[in-house]
């Protein structure tokens, strides 16, 4: 049996969760100032999502584009900087103070850190529509990960439905790789250019990115059937998607055969770890999501807890690196390795570059808002994928007065599955807001508790004091002084 000493790694100055652009940049910066750093990540190699499997991606440069391979240099710098690195590790609990519990290779571990940086990034916004749970429906991000991680592309011509830079980029990458696109259903609402053009002057500061984006659109329009102003989609099939029905604003339904459908309606920060720690969050109406409240360095409302990267607010890889760097600078002052004026000096140039990276955001947010259908799914649509709870059931619970998402959860089971509301939380909030005439910001989100990822009873039991044999567990028996057989 494992000894308690095996279960604890000695205290570090900084624990980073996430090996994406923000996490790696923070590690490199913190190491410059001599901090004791450990970075943990659930994947087998660094890169996060945007640079997924970047270390192994040789030979795919021409398909994936140079922006992807910038990640390779960052990964090299990270590997060389002297930070501890624990891959294949799923964090399931973070307690203030800080104590981090995770499972690595099936073994539970407890880490202690003076400061914590959450760099867990973002996920694609949940996109509920009838049939979205069928095999053959994936997110665009998933398809891109398959390209990065496994060098694979769809066999049949693929349908893409959504809006945002990511599906445009993937479509271009897919064509470069020799893939075929059956059609691109652009769900950005009509009038989005008018909404976006207001922000265009600011966006021009990131002219290079703008031009790149326009270039993608031009390429696609030449080679791919693009359908604009698509307002709703529906996938049908028995065990697998077989056909796709879509509706264009003001037009009739169109039904096409489909073997693979990729969807995307933007990206939202992973707020689960922040919520489980009690960080204050606020509603970002431009991005239609909650984001943690952070100061100019990335510190949250919980002292010594920082968030950097897309987990703090969607802004892309470069901004993530810069925010990770800023957080590490500030953390270095917190642990006494850097004085404040030096910190401010270092930060100045980083902030200038960050402002430039953030300049395009309002334009992109206005150009690619999520379509209304995903916030008002039809009654028969599965909203909670894990527990298979439909929109109709959630609407009924909202209609009888459930005061918030947590009571909806209690009444319908939505949010009780292993994903803990990652695929249904926003939809529950929006349905409730819609039925009760309230703002999503006021409705709030599910109460998130550990475990952030599932952990087995055996792994948990290994941490306890009450085991057979001579194992010195970590925790004393804290169930309570009452006789365990007492009345219930």
């Amino acid at each position, binding site marked *: 049996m494992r000894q308690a000493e095996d279960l604890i790694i000695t205290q570090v100055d900084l624990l980073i969760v996430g090996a994406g652009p923000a996490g790696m940049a923070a590690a490199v910066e913190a190491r410059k100032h001599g901090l004791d750093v450990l970075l943990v990540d*659930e*994947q*087998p*190699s660094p890169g996060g*999502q945007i640079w*997924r*499997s970047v270390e*192994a991606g040789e*030979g*795919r440069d021409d*398909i994936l584009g140079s922006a992807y391979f910038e990640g390779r240099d960052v990964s090299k710098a990270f590997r060389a900087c002297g930070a501890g690195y624990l891959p*294949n590790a*799923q964090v399931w609990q973070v307690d203030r103070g800080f104590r981090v519990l995770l499972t690595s290779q*099936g073994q539970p571990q407890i880490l202690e850190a003076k400061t914590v940086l959450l760099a867990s990034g973002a*996920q*694609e916004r949940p996109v509920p529509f009838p049939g979205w*749970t*069928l*095999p*053959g*429906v*994936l*997110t665009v*991000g*998933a*398809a891109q*990960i*398959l390209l990065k*991680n*496994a*060098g*694979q*592309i*769809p*066999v*049949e011509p693929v349908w893409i439905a959504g809006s945002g830079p990511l599906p445009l980029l993937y479509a271009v990458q897919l064509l470069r*790789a*020799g893939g075929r696109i059956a059609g691109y259903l652009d769900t950005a609402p009509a009038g989005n250019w008018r909404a976006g053009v207001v922000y265009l002057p600011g966006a021009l500061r990131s002219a290079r990115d703008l031009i790149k984006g326009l270039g993608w659109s031009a390429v696609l329009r030449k080679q791919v059937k693009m359908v604009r102003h698509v307002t709703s989609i529906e996938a049908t099939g028995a*065990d*697998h998607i077989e056909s796709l029905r879509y509706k264009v604003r003001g037009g009739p339904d169109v039904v096409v055969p489909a*073997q*693979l459908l990729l969807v995307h309606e933007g990206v939202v920060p*992973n707020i689960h770890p922040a919520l489980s720690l009690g960080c204050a969050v606020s509603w970002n109406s431009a991005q239609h999501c909650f984001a943690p409240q952070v100061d100019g360095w990335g510190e949250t409302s919980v002292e010594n807890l920082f968030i950097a990267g897309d987990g703090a607010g969607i802004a892309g890889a470069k901004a993530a690196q810069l925010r990770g760097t800023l957080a590490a600078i500030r953390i270095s002052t917190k642990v006494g390795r850097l004085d404040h004026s030096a910190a401010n000096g270092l930060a100045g140039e980083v902030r200038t570059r960050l402002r430039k990276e953030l300049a395009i955001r309002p334009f992109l947010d206005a150009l690619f808002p999520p379509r209304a259908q995903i916030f008002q799914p039809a009654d028969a649509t599965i909203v909670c*994928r*894990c*527990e*298979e709870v439909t929109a109709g059931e959630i609407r009924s619970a909202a209609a009888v007065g459930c005061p918030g998402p947590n009571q909806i959860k209690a009444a319908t089971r939505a949010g009780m*599955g*292993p*994903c803990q509301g*990652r*695929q249904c939380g926003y939809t529950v909030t929006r349905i409730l807001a819609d039925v009760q005439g309230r703002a999503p910001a006021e409705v709030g989100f599910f109460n998130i508790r550990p475990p952030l*990822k*599932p952990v087995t009873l055996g792994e948990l039991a290994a941490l306890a004091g009450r085991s057979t044999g001579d194992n010195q567990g970590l925790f004393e028996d804290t169930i309570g002084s009452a006789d365990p057989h007492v009345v219930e």
Partner: protein
Amino acid sequence: MFRKLHESDAPVAIEIDGKTVSAEVGESVAAVLLREADAWARLTPVTQSRRAPYCMMGVCFDCLAEVDGKPSVQTCLVPVCDGMRVTRQCGKRRI
């Protein structure tokens, strides 16, 4: 559903429900599942509906399968290794 762009130089062999398939070091088990003609990972415990990997990044839990005897593994987060045995998970966990 999906196919590889290049064959691997040093392929490994894994088993999916007893059938041997070729895989590449470094790719996830979910990627291999998606190359099957019949691409799915599990049947849901609630309605026994088929699910396949959806998000490929660990936030949907639809890619769960049993890997080398360990059930409910998120196959999108697990890299293949030679001789790995993958069993699709049908309905509720057996213990």
